[in-house]
């Protein structure tokens, strides 16, 4: 039998030491490590280093946490300051990226949002045929928009992360109102208590309440769209290039699949993860986001590969608006609030 090289001898010993998954710091001294692994003396002096190397942090973890802290530090700077910065392009009381639901029976959906999820209807505009053209429901500090489906915009179930004061009560009311339980309420390791339901319109709701932290410090919106995408990692460079987004809190598998990421556009956020297992890929969303300059962002988005659906125009309700579609099929209603008008009441 040919004599093994030191490099091979060392790797055999290392493989033996690494055979205990998860144990990152051994307590034995190096000599004990060497004896246990039956290592030739020529490489035995290197084995104690294995223990120390196993205790190193993952660079990806360090970078992701830094990114997450940076976003939180930004939102901590002062809600008043952020509000001041955004006041010029958002309507009052509109701070989130709003999911825009197109449903078959909008009045019934409004009832669900109000009775089950604690929303407050803030406006309803009807078409000549009596269908709902547009309606808005406020939940917590956020807005949800909706209307009856039409030929241009068919129904698309969406997924929303909903933060409420009492997720247990909201979860129970949602089930009473006809929603189906997908996952029971549980205390999550990231500090939320959360459960998952699907409403009778096919939309999925992660109903959550922060338990171990103060959400006010992190400027978490009550309503955040949540995309489960195949090849979710491809959304990040697109959102950054096309929508001027900033990504934070990226947690990924070693092969680059996104476990969770938060993407901020002009101070509002949506969440993103790779579709897997029971977290099935979501159908494309309709999203309404206020930005400082709709015209400029529209040009930027189209240049970055977004498909134009409606070029910028000034809407009679006091907004500069445009519509684009991203490579995942999501429809983005871009808007800049131009100020209070009669039509916007």
């Amino acid at each position, binding site marked *: 039998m040919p004599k093994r090289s030191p490099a091979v001898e*060392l790797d055999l010993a290392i493989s033996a030491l690494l055979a205990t998954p998860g144990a990152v710091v051994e307590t034995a001294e190096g000599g004990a490590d060497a004896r246990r692994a039956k290592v030739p003396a020529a490489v035995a002096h*290197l084995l104690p280093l294995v223990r120390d190397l196993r205790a190193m942090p*993952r660079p990806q*973890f*360090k970078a992701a*946490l*830094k990114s997450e802290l940076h976003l939180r*530090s*930004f939102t901590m700077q002062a809600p008043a300051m952020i509000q001041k910065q955004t006041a010029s392009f958002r309507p009052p009381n509109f701070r989130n990226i709003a999911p825009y639901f197109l449903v078959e029976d909008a009045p019934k959906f409004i009832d669900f949002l109000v009775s089950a999820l604690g929303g407050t209807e803030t406006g309803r505009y009807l078409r000549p045929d009596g269908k709902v053209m547009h309606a808005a429901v406020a939940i917590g500090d956020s807005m949800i928009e909706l209307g009856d489906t039409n030929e241009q915009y068919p129904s698309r179930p969406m997924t929303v992360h909903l933060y409420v004061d009492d997720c247990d009560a909201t979860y129970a009311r949602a089930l009473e109102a006809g929603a189906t339980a997908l996952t029971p309420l549980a205390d999550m390791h990231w500090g939320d208590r959360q459960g998952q339901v699907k409403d009778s319109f096919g939309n999925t709701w992660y109903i959550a309440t922060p338990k171990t932290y103060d959400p006010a*410090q992190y400027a978490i919106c009550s309503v955040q769209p949540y995309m489960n995408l195949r090849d979710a990692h491809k959304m990040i460079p697109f959102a950054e290039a096309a929508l001027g987004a900033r990504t934070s809190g990226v947690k990924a598998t070693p092969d680059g699949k996104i476990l969770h990421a938060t993407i901020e556009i002009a101070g509002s956020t949506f969440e993103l993860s790779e579709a897997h297992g029971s977290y099935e890929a979501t159908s494309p969303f309709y999203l309404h986001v206020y930005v400082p300059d709709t015209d400029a962002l529209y040009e930027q988005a189209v240049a970055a590969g977004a498909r134009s659906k409606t070029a910028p125009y000034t809407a009679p309700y006091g907004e500069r608006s445009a519509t684009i579609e991203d490579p995942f099929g999501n429809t983005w209603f871009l808007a800049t609030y131009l100020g209070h008008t009669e039509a916007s009441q």
Partner: protein
Amino acid sequence: MVAVRRPAQMEPPGADERLLVQAAQADPSKFDALYELHFERIYFFIVSRVRDRAVAEDITSETFQKALANLSSYEWRGTPFSAWLYRIASNGIVDHYKRSNREQQIDELENPLADRAELASHDIEFIERHVHFFGLVAQLPDVQRRVVLERFVEDRSIREIAQRIGKTEGAIKQLQFRALQTLRAQIGERHA
């Protein structure tokens, strides 16, 4: 580990760190500098006690989140900022085991800051030696560093690393061997 010299990171906190703290209190986005300064020592403090990477990452994350959230209430009293971080981390370790219904491990764990304000000097020395060692790893030639990180931190096999880097398995074993030899030599040269 055989290092004995007192690394530079063990020097008492100076005006620089105080300025960093004050800057972060005035503008939380400047917390980055404190994070970069203390991340490795806090992570190692935690992982050396919980001995599980995933748990260590959770508690490290909680520690820095809490530190950032409560930074405005931190008062500079001449002790290192890291002492405050160690205390938050220590509480996080105990809280973790309480949440996990593993109270029996709390006794074994012995909250290192339960009965005193700061870590013992030998604990600090132990942590700082490892932080210094991590710095040596960062200075390895790129390909050696990548092999080391993938093998020992990301738990990849030699075969996987060979495929990812585009070298033979034998070459990866050689790189691993050289990296450990280099580290061992540097520890000897700089600390013996």
